[in-house]
């Protein structure tokens, strides 16, 4: 997985800080929303609502249920497909 700090990752970090006060330096592409960042299901909904506002991409529930890590979410937002 790329270690380049993408704009998408940067915006996701801002959203995670806003929704759940997760410090940006704790967020990596490998971070699991649930296991590492300790987001509950409602916080994950809030994250993807803000994603929709910032990126203009509506992420359906069945898709974001499969975007378990920050890296998978970045890949989906950048390439429009759920990573294998």
């Amino acid at each position, binding site marked *: 997985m790329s270690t380049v700090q993408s704009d998408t990752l940067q915006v996701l970090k801002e959203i995670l800080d*806003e929704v759940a006060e997760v410090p940006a330096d704790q967020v990596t592409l490998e971070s699991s929303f649930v296991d590492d960042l300790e987001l*509950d*299901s*409602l916080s994950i*909904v*809030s994250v993807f*609502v803000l994603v*929709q506002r910032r990126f203009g991409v509506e992420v359906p*529930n069945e898709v974001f249920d499969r975007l378990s890590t920050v890296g998978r979410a970045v890949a989906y937002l950048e390439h429009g497909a759920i990573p294998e």
Partner: protein
Amino acid sequence: MSAPSAAAAATLRGAATSLWGLGTYLPSRPVTNAMICERIDSSDEWIRSRSGIRLRHWADPSETVEFMAATAAERALENAGITADQVGCVIVSTVSHLHQFPSLAAGVAHRIGAAAPGAFDISAGCAGFCYGLALASDMVAAGSAAYVLLIAVERLSELTDTGDKGTAFLFGDGAGAVVVGPSGQAGIGPVVWGSDGSQKDTIRQSASWSALRDAPETPWPRITMNGREVFKWAAYHLGPVAERALERAGVSADALDSFIPHQANARITDQLVSELKLPDHVSVARSIETHGNTSAVSIPLAMQEMLATGAATPGGLALLLSFGTGLVWAGQVIRLPTAPVTAPVPAATPPVLTDDTRSVR
């Protein structure tokens, strides 16, 4: 919260109507999260973190919807300084009056001694108070009634799936009533409301009465809800409704004294407060902690608590915002009632159970 004189000086565009008085009824059975967790695999901490709820009150068998509605109505009339025979119309908002007909409103009107007012029930779920307030204000403004008694009442405990981890902890019972009457200044802003029937299954009764007839093994109909879908819907749609309600009333967020959203879930309230960027001086209703989600009753209960504790200012401007099964939504800016109130306290004892009580339950 601002000083009363400053609050009264704030203006809104709206009907020359206002809330004359307020009354509520909180039933006698306190139910803690620990009690809820006897039936579901959950914890006090989980329930608090997901909903903000610590306590709710459930009705005793004798605390019928008619009894609770009438008691709240009598308290509202007394608070308003109006007698029952001055009431021109009674509107009841409920989803838990377990008779398809007649309306609960007719029975309540009779019970409180109102002299042949118009009386009917509305079905707008958790948005029922804001829907009813719009109707009441329009009726008074049009001259259809001098005073309208609007009552929200729920016994959601009867429709709660006590074994469902997602909703068992959510709901509470109670009643809230207001008297709407004429006013020398605008006191109720234009309603901003709507519905989206494509979401009709998001919060629903689990089975119809006919399903119960056709398949007697069908479980007793209860509230079924896709909580995450509701949360998502609220996150997308409610902020703009609030902004339009402010705009239509010509009120800036800065001029608000308080924000009283339907107490659906503390997390939804938190999200709205953040999205609307309300100034720090605006008091925010948080009574879900001790009342649970009481559907349309939550706004009058929260309003009374905020006025009684001084969190909200009598005569100040409040933004009301609600949404519920349908899905339906409504919001408006109002001037808070000036008549003094005491905080809602649960009834010390329920009334005696009689044959008549059983029949109106």
